[in-house]
C-alpha cells in the first residue's frame, strides 16, 4: 500500500492508503476528501482536481504535461509551479509517503 497525505486548505490532514496504479484523485474520491471535486471523474476535462504537490515530493511526481497545463490555466485557485491535476498523478512505490496540498476552492 502507498500512503498519501492530503492537507486541505484549512489545515486538515488526512493520510490514506492507495494501490499502485490508482490516481491521487481516485484515492481522494474513494476516501471522501472534500478538497478534491473531480467533476469529470479523471477524464482531464474539468480542472477541479487541482493540487499542489509538496515541495519535497515535486521532483518525484514530475511536472505537468502540456494538456494538463492547458487545463490548469483555467483552474479556479492560483496555479503555482507545483500545481498538478491529481487525476494525472499515478501512484507507484516511489510515491509512498506523498504529500499534496489542496487549494481553497476548485469551482
Amino acid at each position: 500500500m502507498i500512503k498519501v497525505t492530503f492537507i486541505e486548505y484549512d489545515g486538515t490532514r488526512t493520510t490514506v492508503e492507495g494501490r499502485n496504479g490508482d490516481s491521487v484523485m481516485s484515492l481522494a474520491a474513494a476516501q471522501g476528501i472534500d478538497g478534491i471535486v473531480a467533476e469529470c471523474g479523471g477524464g482531464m476535462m474539468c480542472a477541479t482536481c487541482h493540487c499542489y504537490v509538496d515541495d519535497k515530493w515535486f521532483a518525484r511526481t514530475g511536472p505537468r504535461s502540456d494538456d494538463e497545463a492547458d487545463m490548469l490555466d483555467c483552474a479556479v485557485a492560483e496555479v503555482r509551479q507545483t500545481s498538478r491535476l491529481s487525476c494525472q498523478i499515478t501512484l507507484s512505490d516511489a510515491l509512498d509517503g506523498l504529500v499534496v496540498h489542496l487549494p481553497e476552492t476548485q469551482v
Partner: protein
Amino acid sequence: MNDGHVVIVGAGQGGVQAALSLRQEGHGGAITLIGDEEGLPYQRPPLSKDYLKTGQAERLALRPADYFDRKAINLWTGRRVDGIDRAARRVHVGQDTLTYDRLILATGTRNLIPPIPGIGRAFGLRTLAEAKGLRDALNGTRRIAVIGGGFIGLEVAAVARAGRHEVHVAEAAPRLMSRVLSPQMSERFRAKHEALGTRFHLGNGVTELRDGCIVLASGETIDADLVLLAAGVRPNTELAEAAGLAVDNGVVVDPLLRTSDPEIYALGDCCAFPDPESGNHVRLESVQAATDQARAIARTIVHGAQEPYAKVPWFWSDQADWKLQIAGLADPDATSVTVGEDTVFRFSGNRLCAVETINNAKVHMQARKLLARRPAPAYDDLARCGFDLGRETEKDRV
C-alpha cells in the same frame, strides 16, 4: 435558512452534490437524500466509457459509504418518493412520510422507449444495473446494432469496435449528434467512426426488432446479436406534475432554480431553466449543469437569494482516442465556422455561443472563460484576431 430539513429526491450526480454543497455552505439542519437505485450513488459518464471496457464498478461511487454519515446526510437508497403533499410540506416514501422545509427535485431522466415492435429485446444504458447487463451481454456476442447516433450510442460503438465487435448504428436524423453538434463536427465524427469500422445508417430509423436482426425504415434488415437502445431520454417529471408544479420538457424553474412553488427547487437533467442568453427555457443533460445548479441551489437555501443562475455550460464525450469538448450552448440554427482541423465556432446571430473542439483542452478552456463574459465576443472581433481565443482572453488581464 441554515437549519430546517432539506429533502432531496434523486441521489444521482446533482442530488449528491446538493447535499454536499448544503453542508459546505454551512447548513446545520437535517438533510435527507433519497434515491430509488440500489447501492451507493455513482457517476454515469464512465458507464459508456471506462466501465464498459474494464468493468470496475468500485471506481464509480461518487463518495464512500461512511462519507454520508460523516457529513450527517441521511442517505436512503433503494427508496422511491411516491408523492409530494405541498400543502403539508410532506413527501411520501412507501410507508414513510417526511416533512420538509425545502425540497429539491433531482430526479434525472429515463430512457426514451420508442413504440417499435420488439423494442423489449433492446438493452438500455442509463443505470449501473443496465451497464452491467450490457457488459455481460457484450461478452460473447459479435454483431451489435445501436439505435441512435447520439453521444452514448457512439461512445458504446467505439468501445465495441475496440473489442472487435461488428457495429451498426441506425439514426433517424440525417447526421450524428445532431441535437447539439454542428454539421461539420457530425461529419468529422462520422468519418472517424467509419475509419474504425462502424457502419452507419443515417436518416434511417429502426422500425422493428426481430430475433437476430433489426429492420430499418428503408426496409433493409441488419443482423444483430445484441441491440442497444440509445435514442434519447425523457425527464422524470411525473412527481412534479402530480404535485401541480409547472412542467414543460422538464420541471420549469426560475433564474434562482425555484419551481412554481418557491419552497421546491429542481436541478440537472429533470429541470428546464431560463438560458441567460436567450431567456428560453432549456434542459441540459450534463454533469456540469447538475453540479453547478446543485451548488447554486445550496447557496440560495443557506444564504438567501443569489445572482440568477448563469454558468457557462460545458460537456465532453470520449469516442475512441478523440475527446470531444463543447463549451457553451448552440441552438440548431446557430451558424458554424470551422477553424483548423479540430475546432468549430458557433454563432447565434453575431455572437459566439459555443465552441466545439477535438483533443484541444486549451481552446476549450479559453472558450469557457470567454463565454462567461457578457456579452459574448462578436464574430467580427474574433475574425479580426484570426479566431485566436488566446488573444481574446488576454483582454481579461487588463
